[in-house]
């Protein structure tokens, strides 16, 4: 083996070692960011949320809506009595005419008005910030729908005729809304159907409590907004570009 060959081997070895060493903290970060094992209890270590970049969200595109409907077994109909967990809102500024397009769903508030008003505790917030409806004790009083500032909730107005999916039980006469794809999170997938489906990657899912997560870093770097921030609800869903 000549000197050059030895040098080449040392170099490659060194490079591999450096790359390996560089990957260790990255892998550790992945491990840390990987929330929790499915059998581990939900905890307030995590605060799941979404960051929506409205500059990427295309007007007229409803891929996220379709994906949500498919994921949760919703009909996709848009009559006044049909359930919609996520909808695309088109905004036009009254003065400037500036236009924006963005998805609106349950904002998973830290101080959710729906939870405050629910007479049975069916509306509840998990330790990891996900706001849900317990279909076993929801009495269908719709007080949460009156209280929600985001019009995020729907009442199931008619029989579902076995269109339900095993991971997302629903019920006639009960109120429902975006679950932040809790079944995916609990299975360790750590994403949502809408985020996966967005062709522009305008929806970013992540852990707001994890300073190393992309969502937390983007929130720390760029200006973002909460819808109805004046209400002080500290939403888990944030927007940039509006």
């Amino acid at each position: 083996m000549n000197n050059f060959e030895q040098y080449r081997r040392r170099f490659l070895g060194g490079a591999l070692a450096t790359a390996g060493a560089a990957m260790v903290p990255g892998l550790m970060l992945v491990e840390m960011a990987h929330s929790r094992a499915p059998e581990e209890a939900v905890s307030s270590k995590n605060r799941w949320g979404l960051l929506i970049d409205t500059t990427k969200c295309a007007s007229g595109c409803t891929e996220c809506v379709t994906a949500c409907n498919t994921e949760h077994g919703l009909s996709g109909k848009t009559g006044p009595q049909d359930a919609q967990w996520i909808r695309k809102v088109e905004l036009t500024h009254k003065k400037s005419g500036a236009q924006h397009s963005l998805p609106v769903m349950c904002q998973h508030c830290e101080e959710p008005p729906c939870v405050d008003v629910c007479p049975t505790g069916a509306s509840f917030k998990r330790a990891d910030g996900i706001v849900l409806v317990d279909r076993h004790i929801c009495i269908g009083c719709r007080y949460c729908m009156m209280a929600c500032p985001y019009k995020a909730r729907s009442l199931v107005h008619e029989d579902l005729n076995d269109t339900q999916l095993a991971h997302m039980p629903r019920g006639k006469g009960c109120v429902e809304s975006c679950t932040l794809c809790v079944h995916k999170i609990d299975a360790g997938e750590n994403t949502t159907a809408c985020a996966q489906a967005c062709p522009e990657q305008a929806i970013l899912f992540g852990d707001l409590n994890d300073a190393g997560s992309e969502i937390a870093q983007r929130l720390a770097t760029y200006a973002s907004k909460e819808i109805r921030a004046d209400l002080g609800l500290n939403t888990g869903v944030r927007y940039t570009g509006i």
Partner: protein
Amino acid sequence: MQIINREIEGNSAGYWALLGGLGALILIGLFAAYNMEHHGHVITGMNNQIVWGLPHVFAVFLVVAASGALNVASVAGVFGKKAYKPLAPLSALLAIALLAGGLAVLMLDLGRADRAIITAWEVNPTSVFSWNVVLYSGFFGFTAAYLWTMLDKTAKPFYGFAAYGAFIWRLILTTGTGLIFGFLVARQAFGTALLAPKFIVFSLLYGTAIYVLVLMPAYIWGQRALGDEVLRRLKNMLVVFIAASFYMTLVYHLTNVYFAKQWDFERFILQDGGIYTILFWLGQVVIGYLVPFILLVAPNTRNSRSMLMASAVMIVLGALAQMYVTIVGGQAFPLEMFPGFIEKSSFFDGEIHAYTPSHWEWMLGIGGTAIALAMVVFAVKVLRILPESLADDVVDPHAKK
């Protein structure tokens, strides 16, 4: 002269026809409730925009009127006005009956009425609805106790306690009813503590009007003496309560008009809201306040019994209009999520929400009202609720002639 309360005979064809008619209306209401449960709310006009519709208009009206109906009894039991004492048992009975009717509508309109009992053990201390479970039960309890102390001489020692308890409880109850809406932070129509006193004042008007509407036919059909003195007092109360209700309405809207962010909502209710604008001006203000006020104070009509009756009917119609404007109108105006922007979506964001009540909702609401009235018609036959005579010299021998 001693006041003697006695059951009505209740054997006439008219009595049974009345009870039978109310029974039929109750069955119609229950039939509607069954269908709403069986098919779901899809058969109603309610939707994901107007989530509380006509059943809530009836239910909240009846619940608010219930606490107001107790007013006559409170004037006797708490404020010590003797002339109102003979009127008190009917007042307490009406309060119980109206609350029962209102709650029946509220419960049967639930998406899962079969689960209503869950509210008894799954308590959420931050929910006004959860408080109301306690408030409604307490109101039944205090008012029933109050009625008992009036009807049973052996219970006399508890009279004062029950009277004060029921009075304080009714104020808390209607505060709770107002705050169902007052604590809705997100909606332009609600989110103000003013709704609590406003509902209390409204309750005095609505409850007293219903009291008149029950008392007068009861004495005419029962062929018992009903003097002018009693009616004069009730009329005077109505006049004061109309003025107070108008004042609360005025303050509410003036406050909104002062806040620029509320202008669109006020323009909607007062000017451009179609059915809601008509119901506000023609229903609540003209029929509910203005015409009855004039009829009750104008020299030509103020002593007329038929005009008092007509005024009470108009006040109730105005009350239903007010509830419709407050509850449905408050939801028809869209949530403003993005101030300064025109909003558009498949979920009707930024639009005035449409609502047409279905016949099922009318049936349920009227059925609940019939429950309240049937309870009264039944109770006056089996309990000593109504004085044999409410002639002037019986009620208040020293009254000015």
